[in-house]
C-alpha cells in the first residue's frame, strides 16, 4: 500500500471525523439556543410512551398512512439506508479490519447491499427530477447531496474488494470521496440524521402528553 493511501485511510479520515464532530457540536449548540416551549398542562397521556413511539416510527411503516400506502417507497428507504450503513462501515473496515474483506461471502453481502442502495439512489434521483412537486421544492443541495451519495455507493462497490495490490485508485477514489462527504455533510441536508432524534423527541413529547401518541388503533369497520 502506498504511503498516500495509508495516510488517506487513516489520519485524513480521523481528521475529517473530528471536524464533523466539532461542527455537529456547534450545530447542536445552535439548535439549543432556541428557547424550548414549556408545558404547563396536566398530561392526558404518557410523554415517554409518546417519545418512544415517535422515535421508533422509522421502524413502524404500518403506523403512518404515508408509508402504508407506499410500501415500495419505504422499502427503498430501508435499502438506501442499509447501503449507507454498509458503505460507512467499509470506511472503517478497510483500514482497521482488512481481514474481514478477505472473506468472500462478506464481500458479496456488502456488494449486494451497496449495489441495491446505488440503484435506489438512481431511482430517487429520477423521482426528484421527474416529479414536478419535488422539482419545485428541491434545492441544489438536495440534488448534490443525492448525487454525492450515489457516487459514494459506486466508489464503495469498487473499493470493498480492497484489491489495492492490483490498483489503488478505487480505494483512493473511495477515501477521497469519503473525506469530502464527511466535511460536506454537516453543512448539507444529509445531517438530517443529527436532527431526527430531536424532531421526533419534541413531537413525541408534545403529542404523547396529549394522548395522541402512541396512536390508537384505527377501527376500520364500515357498515
Amino acid at each position, binding site marked *: 500500500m502506498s504511503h498516500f493511501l495509508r495516510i488517506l485511510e487513516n489520519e485524513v479520515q480521523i481528521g475529517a471525523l473530528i471536524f464533523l464532530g466539532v461542527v455537529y457540536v456547534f450545530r447542536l449548540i445552535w*439548535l439549543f439556543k432556541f428557547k424550548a416551549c414549556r408545558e404547563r398542562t396536566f398530561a392526558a397521556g404518557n410523554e415517554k410512551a409518546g417519545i418512544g413511539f415517535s422515535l421508533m416510527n422509522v421502524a413502524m411503516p404500518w403506523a403512518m398512512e404515508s408509508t402504508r400506502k407506499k410500501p415500495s417507497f419505504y422499502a427503498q428507504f430501508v435499502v438506501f439506508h442499509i447501503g449507507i450503513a454498509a458503505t460507512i462501515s467499509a470506511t472503517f473496515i478497510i483500514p482497521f479490519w482488512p481481514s474481514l474483506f478477505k472473506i468472500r461471502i462478506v464481500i458479496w453481502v456488502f456488494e449486494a447491499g451497496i449495489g441495491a442502495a446505488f440503484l435506489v439512489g438512481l431511482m430517487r434521483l429520477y423521482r426528484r427530477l421527474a416529479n414536478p412537486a419535488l422539482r419545485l421544492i428541491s434545492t441544489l443541495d438536495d440534488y448534490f447531496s443525492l448525487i454525492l451519495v450515489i457516487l459514494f455507493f459506486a466508489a464503495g462497490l469498487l473499493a470493498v474488494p480492497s484489491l489495492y495490490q492490483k490498483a489503488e485508485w478505487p480505494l483512493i477514489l473511495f477515501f477521497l470521496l469519503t473525506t469530502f462527504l464527511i466535511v460536506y455533510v454537516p453543512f448539507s441536508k444529509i445531517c438530517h440524521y443529527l436532527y431526527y432524534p430531536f*424532531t421526533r423527541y419534541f413531537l413525541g413529547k408534545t403529542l404523547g402528553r396529549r394522548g395522541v401518541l402512541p396512536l390508537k388503533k384505527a*377501527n376500520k369497520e*364500515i357498515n
Partner: protein
Amino acid sequence: MSKQKIDISSVLNSPLETKSQEKAKQDNLRSVVERKLKLYDPKANNVKRMLELLSRRVSRQVASSIVGCVHCGMCAESCHYALARPEDPTMISVYKAEQVRKIFKRHLDWTGRIIPWWANARYPADDKELNRLKNVVFGTCSGCRRCTLNCPMGVDTAAIIRLGRGLLTELGIVPEGVFNVSRDEWETGNQMGVTEQDYLETLEWMKEEVRAELGDSKVEIPVDKEDCNFMYIINPREIKFDPRSIGNAAKIFHLAGEKWTLPRRGWDQTNFGLFSGDDNLGGFLARNVYEAASRLRAKCIVISECGHGYRSTRWEGYNWASYDQKIPTESVVATLVRYIKERRIKVDPSKNSEPVTFHDSCNIARSGGMTEEPRWILRQVCLNFREMLPNRTENYCCTGGGGLLSMVEYRPLRLEVARIKAEQLKATGARFVCTMCHNCMDGLADIIKHYRLDMKVVQVLDLVANALVLPDKKQKGDGSRTVPEPSP
C-alpha cells in the same frame, strides 16, 4: 362532484384588504392604542421587522422541524389540498412550509446565510412578497396537522405555518376576516362581539325554554355561581346562532343533578390566537377563562363542543398564558361519558335510528388525543353508528379549520379541495354526520350544501339530548323522536 378548478394565482395574489384596519385606527380602539392589535404600516420596513421577530419567536421545537425536513415529499398525499389538486405542486405541504423555511434559512441557518442560492434560502423582497406569503399560510393550509403525522422525520409543518402566520399578524398583514375576529376578541373578550346583555338574555331565554320542555321550574342556567363542580364555557356561536346547544347542555346537567355554572366573564372558549399565530391574543383569551374558574373556585373547566376551543383551552392556552394548570379541564363529551357510565342520565339509542357517522375534528383528534370518547357515546345513543374511512387521527379536515371560515377570499379554493371530504362523507351512506366542533359544523355544512349531499350535521350533545329518557312526569307526548333537530 364539482370539478371546477380555481386559478391558484387568484388566491396567491389576493390583495391585502385594510378597510377594517383603517376603521380600527380611526376609532382609536383600545387594542390598537395599546398595541395589542397590530396594523399594517406600508411605510415601515416590514421585511426587516419580520426578520427581527423571527429571531425572537422561533422555538426549539419549530427550529428542529424547520431544519429536519429532507424534502422527501411523503407529506404530499396527506394534504387534502394536494389530493384535490394533484396537478398543482404549490398545494403540497412541504412547498407551503418552504415559504417560511427559506426565510429562516437565509436569516438563521449557517448554509443559508453563507451560500443562500445553494439552499434556496431567500429573504422576502418587499411587502408584495409578504402578502403572497400571507395567502400561502392563511389561504392554502387549514393547520390540520395531517402532514405532521405522515412525515417520516416528524416535521411539524402545521407549527411552521403557524409561525409564518404569527409573524405576519405582528405586521398587520393578515386576511381581513382574521383581523376582524382578533379585533373583537381583544375589544370584547369574545369572538363575535357578544355583549354581556345579549349573553345573559340568551341564557335566560334558554332557561325558560328548558323549564317549559321539562315541566320543571327548578331548571337553572347558573351564572357566576361559586364552588361548583365545574364551570362551563361555550362558543359565542352558541349565543348568536345556536342557543339550543346551551339549552341541551342545561337540560342534561339538570337531569344529571350537576352543580355547575357559566361565568359572567371569561365564558368564551374560542381562541383566534391559535389561527392567527398570535400567542399574546391566545394567552389573553385563555387567561380570561382560567381566571374566571379561579374566581368562581370551580373544581373543573368543561368546554362545550369546539375543536380549536378545546385545543386552545385544554392545551395551548396554559402555555401561551404562562399559567400553570391547577384544575382539570375537559371537553363536555368526557363529562357526558361519565354521566352515562354512572347512569346519571339514561339514554335510548332507538331515538336516533338513522345512520350516523362521526367526523374527528383535527384539533381534537390529532392535536388533542380525544377519539374514543365520542365514539363510545355514539354507540350508546345511536342505533346505527358507522365509521368513515379514514378516521381518528387519519381523518381528513373539514376544510373549515385554521380560521378559514372567516376568510371569504379563500372560500372558492376551500370548497374545491373539499371534494376529498365530500367523497369521504358520501361513502359512509350516513344520514347524519356528527362532530364535536362548531367550526367543523359550519365547514361540513358548507361541503354538504356545495356538493349536494343528502346529509345533516349534528353534534354529540344534540344526539345525547335527543336520546334522553326523561323521568316519567317529564315525558312529552310519546317521548320519542327518531330524527335529531338538524343544525340551522
